[in-house]
């Protein structure tokens, strides 16, 4: 019996040693002599696969990070948010703001050896304009026409101040007309663009292999062999980064932030996401139709606690609804502070001294579910009895976005382009029932402001307009902004040129070892 006990203790001890580790440190394993050969390959870790590489067919962060290597739009949106000429050398916007004429760069080659023509450009733009997947960026565009060999005209449905940002979107990239027309389905897995890399191999679920394009118009890339490796598990991805199996990792899990920041072999960059998480309120349903009740809720909530619950506290509290990076975001408008006493007072004034019953619809994704629990708790403290209505993601979308059968819901959105105009669809009365304005908000002053903001060409005027827009949203508590997440990127120390970007604009062409 005693022998057995001694043995068991030893066994468990051995197991503990194995899992906690007290072996040789890795330091001496790395000194394999000085490497003089310059590395010319790069492995980029991405957290999900992109199912199609046709820019007109998919609107997603992950897709953009791949598109930016294969394709280019007419206007390039740089990592720091500025715009510079891309496949168009220059462009003119007509005085009334409804036409944009692009002067194309000459001699640009596609990966299949063809030279880019005005026909390719007009074809690509029209394809994107007709795509149902790209409504958040193509809604202002009407059609593209060829003027001559080197010029293409884009006509708009109405003057649109953010048109350059939209044209500079990765989804508006120029594709090879012949390759698409030959076999549109094949094109999804065999893209032909003008970018610095071409797709050499795609192992479904595993990786995309790219090679540098020798005839790239800016000159061949310094990093010749590029692999986009799909690693679904965040923890595994971090280990792969630490042991050098991948060189750069897009969107590492927020919970591992400290581990990466404290690792001297890793560079970690982050920037605020160009989007917001917010509490969506059904403005048409009693008692939420009373602005005072909505304001009471906005004073009653604890944004900080919600952010901690949702993202381990990685993020920035938002005062206004639009993304901070968007043009027109007012720095001097403050959100309603956390003040439960004031909230109770507002509820009493609106005739609900004892509160009321309400439901919060959410799916099970912790990003939404956890802050919903915090919201429920905060509301309880001001006397509102909130019930969590947990359904699956698809059902949430249908109930909230389509049927508008909800009361409170925590939601998130990201700016399709960096201009406050993108919130038009969420708050303009005309947009009720069209997908985005599911709050059911129809405020005359707000409608006028949004209309003016969309067409005005005067940037100072537009800033004033969006400042007022944000004030109204907060005063009326149409929707309550909570926080914006962080877009992070981690890479091995030696990689140069890495920049975080709110819209996954990683240009590997600009990187070097």
């Amino acid at each position: 019996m005693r022998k057995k006990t001694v043995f068991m203790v030893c066994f468990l001890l051995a197991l503990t040693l194995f899992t906690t580790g007290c072996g040789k440190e890795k330091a001496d394993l790395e000194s394999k002599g000085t490497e003089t050969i310059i590395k010319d390959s790069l492995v980029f870790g991405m957290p999900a696969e992109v199912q199609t590489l046709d820019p007109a067919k998919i609107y997603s962060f992950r897709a953009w990070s791949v598109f930016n290597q294969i394709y280019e739009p007419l206007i390039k949106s740089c990592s720091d948010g500025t715009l510079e000429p891309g496949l168009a050398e220059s462009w003119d916007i007509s005085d009334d703001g409804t036409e944009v004429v692009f002067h194309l760069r000459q001699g640009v080659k596609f990966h299949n050896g063809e030279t880019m023509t005005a026909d390719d450009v007009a074809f690509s733009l029209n394809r994107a304009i007709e795509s149902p997947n790209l409504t958040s960026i193509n809604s202002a565009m009407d059609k593209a026409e060829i003027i001559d060999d080197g010029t293409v005209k884009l006509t708009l449905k109405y003057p649109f101040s953010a048109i350059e940002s939209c044209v500079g979107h990765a989804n508006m990239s120029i594709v090879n007309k012949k390759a698409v027309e030959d076999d549109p389905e094949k094109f999804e897995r065999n893209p032909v663009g003008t970018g610095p890399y071409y797709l050499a191999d795609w192992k479904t679920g595993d990786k995309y292999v790219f090679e540098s394009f020798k005839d790239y118009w800016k000159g061949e890339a310094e990093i010749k062999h590029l692999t986009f490796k799909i690693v679904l598990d965040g923890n595994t991805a971090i280990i792969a980064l630490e042991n050098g199996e991948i060189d750069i990792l897009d969107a590492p899990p927020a919970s591992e932030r400290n581990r990466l920041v404290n690792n001297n072999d890793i560079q970690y960059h982050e920037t605020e996401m160009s989007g917001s998480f917010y509490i969506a309120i059904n403005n048409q349903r009693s008692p939420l139709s009373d602005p005072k009740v909505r304001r009471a809720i906005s004073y009653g909530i604890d944004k900080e606690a919600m952010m901690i619950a949702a993202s381990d506290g990685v993020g920035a509290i938002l005062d206004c609804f639009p993304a901070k990076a968007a043009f027109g975001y007012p720095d001097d408008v403050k959100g309603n502070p956390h003040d439960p006493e004031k909230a109770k007072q507002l509820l009493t004034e609106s005739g609900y001294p004892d509160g009321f019953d309400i439901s919060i619809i959410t799916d099970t994704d912790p990003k939404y579910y956890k802050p919903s629990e915090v919201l429920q708790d905060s509301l309880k403290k001001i006397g509102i009895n909130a019930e969590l209505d947990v359904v699956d993601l698809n059902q949430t979308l249908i109930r909230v976005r389509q049927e508008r059968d909800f009361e409170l819901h925590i939601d998130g959105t990201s700016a399709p382009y960096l201009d406050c105009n993108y919130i038009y669809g969420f708050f303009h009365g005309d947009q009720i029932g069209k997908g985005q304005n599911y709050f059911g908000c129809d405020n005359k002053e707000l409608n006028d402001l949004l209309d003016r903001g969309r067409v005005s060409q005067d940037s100072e005027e537009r800033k004033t307009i969006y400042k007022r827009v944000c004030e109204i949203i907060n005063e009326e508590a149409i929707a309550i902004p909570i926080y914006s997440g962080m877009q992070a990127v981690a890479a091995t120390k030696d990689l140069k040129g890495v920049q975080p970007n709110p819209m996954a604009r990683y240009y590997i062409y600009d990187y070097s070892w």
Partner: protein
Amino acid sequence: MTRYIIKRILAMIPVLLGISFVIFTIMSLTPGDPALAILGKDATPEALELLREDMGLNEHFLLRYAKYMTNAFRGDFGISYSTRTPVFDEVFSRYPNTLKLSFFSIIFMVVLGIPIGIVSAVKKYSLIDSISMIGALLLTSIPGFWLGLMLILQLSLKYRLLPAIGIDSWKNYIMPCITLGAADLAILVRITRSNMLEIVRQDYIRTARAKGAGKMRVIFKHTLRNAMLPIVTTIGLCFGSLLSGAIIVESVFGMPGVGTMIINAIRAKDTPLVMASVLFFTIIIGLINLIVDIIYAIIDPRVRSSYGG
């Protein structure tokens, strides 16, 4: 025997029909909208309606089922709702990886599990027996994803012996196979041990010993062979659980298998992809069961004679 095999294969057809109908019904009747899953939450109602029409989602579900099955019998499993690529290509580019992983795990289980079980039974209550029994208890209790991460931390990050992600070489399969096979290995060890111990008590073993048969002969020829039937059954059953366990292991080790694909497909209400994956699963499990039955016949003459061959 051949007739029996053909009969068994034919018997799979009603099973497949039944399962396909159940899955199709569940996918159709559960709330959710594939069009919404594709276009995203900001989509306009017109775009959604257009896409639903385009994908034939507005038709009655029985009609859709009939159409689906007719095409499936012709080998056309449709276009995935979420990826818009042919389902057949999608599924078959991933299934080999999952099968390879499960197969290697089975080998790992058998090569380690049966000998350990035999040794444990032969050296009952010895130190080796205690080690293997405690080890088996631990392995069944450890969650797969945790074991996987620990292996990666130690073997990959600390000692840099094995790659953490991918499927590029045979080295990539070592840790996933250990992770996947661990729990079932433990079961196999216990089953082997208990069956061996049971058979050892039988009269014919005593007779064999009395007649002067060598120790090895008694263990392998007389005991193990008779203990094999439940062991083979266990291995067959394990294959099913390995296929489903692969879902977690694949995502931990970044392997492009079928597990993660099914999860995403279910979330996106991607009926064609779910159907093809489940049907394939069914066929595989059916075939494994058949193989197990054939192995029975090979091992046990009594079973063989009952097939009439």
